[in-house]
């Protein structure tokens, strides 16, 4: 359990369970539901792009977000539901006696509640979303095994996050996505060039003259090897007709072009991902630098307030008074007396009691 979890989930009215406790509960509930034939739903909830939020606004906002989401889940679920935390800041909800529709309704409430939340970070208002993966103990086609319930929920969460987040994927949908993923995988494998040439029934080697005749623009990296394999696949000996040689040439060139484009696309994606990471880090550095500058200025101000000016010493070490050598001594003496009397009178007007004492 992370420090956040320990500080967040303890001491509340309805404490969250630890991963171990949740798993123990799940086993108990699973056995009970199997025995009594009642359904059971598991929801796995994760805040979308939480790491980036922490990078941008700091760990304080991350804790606020997790605390708020946990609070929402707590208020949205029933008292009999078990709420726990998993590693990586995911929340786990176990709702016994709940059909698939009930789980979907709960997930929808959580999604809508989280969308309505807003957080203040560095003077900006931030909104968040969550992804939810759900697993139902009794799907339409089969009854999920105890050990796979969590895997299915995690799979659903993964699909939900990879689809852009802010959605709920339950077990049936997960199966649908899984099937689609497998279909796409099969399609990719079918379209992709063969990784290896079967040893048995290998065609005869390409004649050096024919291989030299094939021109492949922009071959690089694995491309020569691929070219050789394809040439080997189409391998025609010297003296075959020109049409077949031209077809071979075009197929090889086309395959290499496709491959090059695919490599470039993959590289481009990786570069843009790196750029995003760099941007995020640069923004964080900028914000930290700004915060550091402000802290530095505050420290300087605080220090300056403590630095006391020793002052400049007066030329007089004692009280002076009118010099008897002054040519207007008498006049000035009388004026001083009148100024004093006027000030004494003023004090009387301001605070009569005090002046009487003077």
């Amino acid at each position, binding site marked *: 359990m992370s420090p956040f979890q320990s500080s967040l989930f303890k001491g509340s009215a309805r404490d969250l369970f630890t991963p171990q406790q949740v798993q123990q509960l799940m086993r108990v509930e699973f056995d009970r539901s199997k025995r009594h034939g009642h359904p059971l739903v598991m929801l796995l909830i994760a805040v979308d792009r939480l790491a980036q939020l922490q990078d941008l606004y700091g760990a304080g906002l991350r804790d606020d977000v997790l605390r708020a989401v946990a609070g929402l889940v707590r208020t949205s679920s029933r008292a009999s539901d078990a709420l726990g935390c998993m590693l990586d800041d995911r929340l786990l909800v176990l709702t016994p006696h709940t059909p698939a529709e009930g789980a979907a309704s709960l997930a929808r409430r959580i999604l809508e509640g989280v969308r309505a939340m807003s957080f203040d970070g560095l003077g900006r208002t931030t909104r968040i979303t969550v992804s939810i993966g759900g697993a139902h103990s009794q799907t339409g086609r089969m009854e999920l095994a105890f050990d796979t319930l969590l895997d299915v929920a995690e799979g659903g969460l993964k699909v939900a996050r990879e689809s852009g987040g802010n959605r709920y994927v339950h077990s049936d949908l997960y199966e649908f996505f899984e099937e689609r993923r497998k279909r796409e995988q099969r399609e990719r494998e079918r379209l992709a060039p063969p990784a290896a040439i079967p040893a048995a029934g290998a065609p005869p080697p390409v004649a050096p003259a024919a291989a030299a005749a094939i021109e492949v623009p922009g071959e690089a990296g694995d491309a020569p090897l691929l070219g050789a394999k394809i040439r080997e696949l189409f391998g025609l000996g010297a003296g075959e007709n020109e049409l077949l040689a031209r077809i071979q040439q075009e197929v090889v060139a086309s395959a290499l072009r496709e491959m090059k484009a695919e490599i470039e696309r993959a590289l481009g994606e990786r570069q843009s991902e790196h750029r995003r990471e760099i941007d995020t880090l640069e923004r964080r550095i900028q914000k930290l630098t700004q915060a550091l500058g402000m802290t530095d200025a505050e420290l300087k101000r605080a220090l300056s307030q403590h630095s006391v000016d020793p*002052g400049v010493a007066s030329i*007089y070490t004692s009280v002076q008074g009118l010099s008897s050598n002054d040519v207007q001594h008498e006049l000035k003496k009388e*004026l001083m007396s009148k100024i004093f009397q006027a000030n004494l009178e003023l004090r009387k007007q301001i605070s009569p009691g005090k002046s009487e004492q003077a």
Partner: protein
Amino acid sequence: MAKQSSEATNKDQGVLYLGIDLGTSRTSVTASNGVRETVASYVGYPKDVVARKLLQKDVLFGDEALEKRLSLDFYRPLAHGVIKSDNESAKNLKAAADLIGEIIRRARPRRDELIYAVIGAPAQASINNKEAILKAAKEHVDSVMLCSEPFSVAYGIDMLDDTLVIDIGAGTTDLCRMHGTMPEDADQITNTFAGDHIDETLAKLIREKHPEAQFSIQMIKSIKEKHSNVADNMPPVVVNFPVKGKPTPFDITDLVRTSCRSIVPPMVDAIGELIGTFDPEFQERLKGRVLLGGGGSQIRGLDAEIERQMYERLGGGKVLRVEESMYGGANGALKIAHDMPAEYWEKLR
């Protein structure tokens, strides 16, 4: 100053005298440690948390406050010569107190010295004003006294007999007849034909003659401080004002002269009144010892213009300028502080 008995006994290293001239436009201090400081009488407090964070200060004074006034709750606590008592009276009193505290801090007193201050207060300051000034000053000094501003100017240059002191400030012009004793109410006349009046007149004249020119009263004040003159042959005053965003030159020579001259007739009226009610035997002597002080005395040719109008209306007169117009009041207050007997200071602590 919060006085603890132990602190009082620790103050055995010397006595610092402060002379403070609390003016509408500028507040100045001269001290017996050689420090002389002046600050424009503006006080500003950050409007909100954002401004506070930007300015890094809780209170700004003088030209700095003026420069940042858009981010501040801005006060000119001594406008019109007294602490303003409008609907923001409490805030003005606080601003005045902070200003007094700041000018005392700028005198750089030592912690182990007794500090005795004389403050030249506006002649027409009310009892509430004086109480506020005393209260603010007592936070920072051991003993404080108030005296009339024009009197302190005259005392500073030892012209205590048969002298007519004219202290031209920003908010008011104070005229005081000195005749070898403390001036009474009948010896003093105050009018508001002073620096601010010149600013307002100049702004009005420019607005009438060049309605397209855009300016603020601060711009007018700067122009006045740089070009003020009442002479017939004064150098031309050509200034740039924006017109629809474009800086455009305007010749305002005549307008500057007219606005600066606008304070002279009321001043000569007041001079005439003070001279006319003086002992006839000494009237001629009083006319020959008119002393011009305050920031307004820096208007070029003003002494000659007053003399000219005195000649026309009173049959003659001689006008002298105080050498240091900015510190004339503060110097006089410092001299009073120095000459004040020790027992008087003690009684007022």
